[in-house]
């Protein structure tokens, strides 16, 4: 296949990817969009095989078999709750591939110094640099989410200064290469430096902020792919990479906005450190916490007209979605009206609760989005908060000094009674006190969410 035919054929891939993005942005068509993207990818692979310069088929096929089967198996086996770390992993390997391509291109094109076009060497450097950061950063994100390393932010004195110096050194190596010092060891050093930077960059970010970080690194890999496209003078890489780079950047901003946080705050705020004063305020509040037994709560639920379940991160931790569904069914049989109030950033990734509850086959009409749910709490008898905390914290509405002030929340305190299922008085993701727990309307049912729900089921059955 000649160069011109190749370029026209790649255009089909470009169109497929654009359509994929458009379709992925709407709930009804998202899955089809993913398929369109996959077809576009297949076309690109086919066209690349047909290119004249591609002669070593076997190496490619072996590589594909190994990488593809690893990807397929890992993606099939992973539990729904471990999705974010899977995405991080696949994102990282993509970035790594971009960096390796640049290394190989450099090796092939620059046997002697001073031979590369300026734009080619710039793109080799960018792709190696950004791809390496994305690879290393994604691996740390994976490790944090998989709990291979500690999730809490790892901070130390002078951290920003060290990171700053490191990236300056890496950039200096890049500039030297572009200026004509086209030495192998320089690009290897650059890649190693970028890998280290990637690690140091993500370490101080809290585990719960990882979805946002992964989204950012996703955009990085896209940009690295686009840079690879400039190296290889290949439009499909330029367009597809940059589509991901641009849309990923915007998506990162949107994700931050949904949590009412700026991206700078996510990246450099070390959110989720143990903040001593947050723990301290706990007692000062003066309010009292009422704790109830499962029997008491079972009675409240069984004799209510309307019960709203408010799931949060704790539901995911306890894997209690199936039990919640069972309890809801039981209550419905007793004539109680049941629904679920879904906060957009409940859990640890956008759509987290929808995925969990869908897994438990909760009927779609029972899921209510924030605004809808908020309009109904005033006529709700019992709001059953299952492992949620920040997303029901009235301080976001009332307390200007609160770090989450301004975040829209689920107003469970407007219900007649609130039951909170959690294991302790520990704070949630934001690390702050929740006045809801001291509200006279509220009773706490301490314990793991799955255990508590199981007890509630048993008790409701006996009523």
């Amino acid at each position, binding site marked *: 296949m000649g160069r011109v035919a190749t370029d026209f054929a790649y255009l089909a891939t470009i169109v497929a990817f654009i359509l994929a993005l458009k379709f992925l942005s709407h709930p009804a068509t998202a899955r089809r969009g993913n398929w369109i993207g996959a077809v576009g990818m297949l076309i690109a692979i086919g066209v690349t095989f047909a290119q004249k310069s591609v002669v070593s088929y076997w190496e490619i096929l072996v590589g594909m078999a190994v990488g593809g089967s690893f990807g397929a198996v890992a993606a099939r086996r992973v539990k729904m709750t471990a999705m974010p770390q*899977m995405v991080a992993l696949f994102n990282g390997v993509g970035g790594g591939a971009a960096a390796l391509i640049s290394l190989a291109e450099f090796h092939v094109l620059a046997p002697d110094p001073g031979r590369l076009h300026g734009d080619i060497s710039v793109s080799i450097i960018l792709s190696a640099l950004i791809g390496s950061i994305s690879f290393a950063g994604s691996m740390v994100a994976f490790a944090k989410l998989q709990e291979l390393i500690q999730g809490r932010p790892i901070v130390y004195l002078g951290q920003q200064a060290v990171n700053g110096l490191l990236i300056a050194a890496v950039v200096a190596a890049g500039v030297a290469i572009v200026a004509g010092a086209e030495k192998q060891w320089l690009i290897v050093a650059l890649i190693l430096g970028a890998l280290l930077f990637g690690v140091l960059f993500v370490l101080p970010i809290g585990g719960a902020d990882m979805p946002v970080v992964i989204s950012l690194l996703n955009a990085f890999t896209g940009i690295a792919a686009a840079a690879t496209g400039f190296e290889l003078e290949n439009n499909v890489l330029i367009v597809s990479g940059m589509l991901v780079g641009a849309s990923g950047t915007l998506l990162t901003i949107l994700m931050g906005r949904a949590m009412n946080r700026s991206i700078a705050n996510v990246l450099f705020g070390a959110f989720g450190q143990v903040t001593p004063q947050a723990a301290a305020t706990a007692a000062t509040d003066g309010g009292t916490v009422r704790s109830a037994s499962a029997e008491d709560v079972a009675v409240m639920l069984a004799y209510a007209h309307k019960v709203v379940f408010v799931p949060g991160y704790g539901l995911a931790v306890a894997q209690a979605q199936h039990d919640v569904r069972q309890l809801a069914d039981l209550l419905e049989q007793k004539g109680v009206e049941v629904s679920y109030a879904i906060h957009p950033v409940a859990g640890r990734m956008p759509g987290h609760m929808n995925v969990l509850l869908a897994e438990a086959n909760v009927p779609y009409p029972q899921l209510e989005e924030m605004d809808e749910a908020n309009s109904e709490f005033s006529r709700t008898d019992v709001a059953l908060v299952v492992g949620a905390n920040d997303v029901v914290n009235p301080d976001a509405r009332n307390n200007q000094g609160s770090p989450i002030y301004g975040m829209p929340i689920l107003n469970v305190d407007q219900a007649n009674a609130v039951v909170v299922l959690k294991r302790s008085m520990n704070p949630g993701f934001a690390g702050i006190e929740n006045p809801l727990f001291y509200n006279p309307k509220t009773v706490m049912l301490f314990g793991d969410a799955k255990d508590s729900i199981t007890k509630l089921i048993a008790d409701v059955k006996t009523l």
Partner: protein
Amino acid sequence: MSHGLLLAFEVTILVLAIFLGFEVISKVPTLLHTPLMSGTNAIHGIVIVGAMLVAGLGHKDTLTTVVGLVAVVLASANVVGGFVVTDRMLEMFRKREPAKTPAAAADGGAAGRDPSKPEVPPTQ
């Protein structure tokens, strides 16, 4: 067409892709943030084209061979894993759509119902 002109065209293409990427995503619901992240993740697996071009070269030295092979492995994992994970996620979301408890409380009428009919309230 000179190298410079080629670059000018490539940059034009890059700029258009940036605007297009922003425009397409500009109004996506929170619900879809994670699947969209995962879907775009799969799309940047397009680096597999670059990896193939490197690994596919004839007459290459050992370093290029090894690096190219590893690049193909990584990129393939990105592509396959990316699309499969996204599809699994979206499959979960899709489950919401049908739902429909055939509301067979005690009326026994379930037999005569057309399963393709619009939603029935969940009162089982």
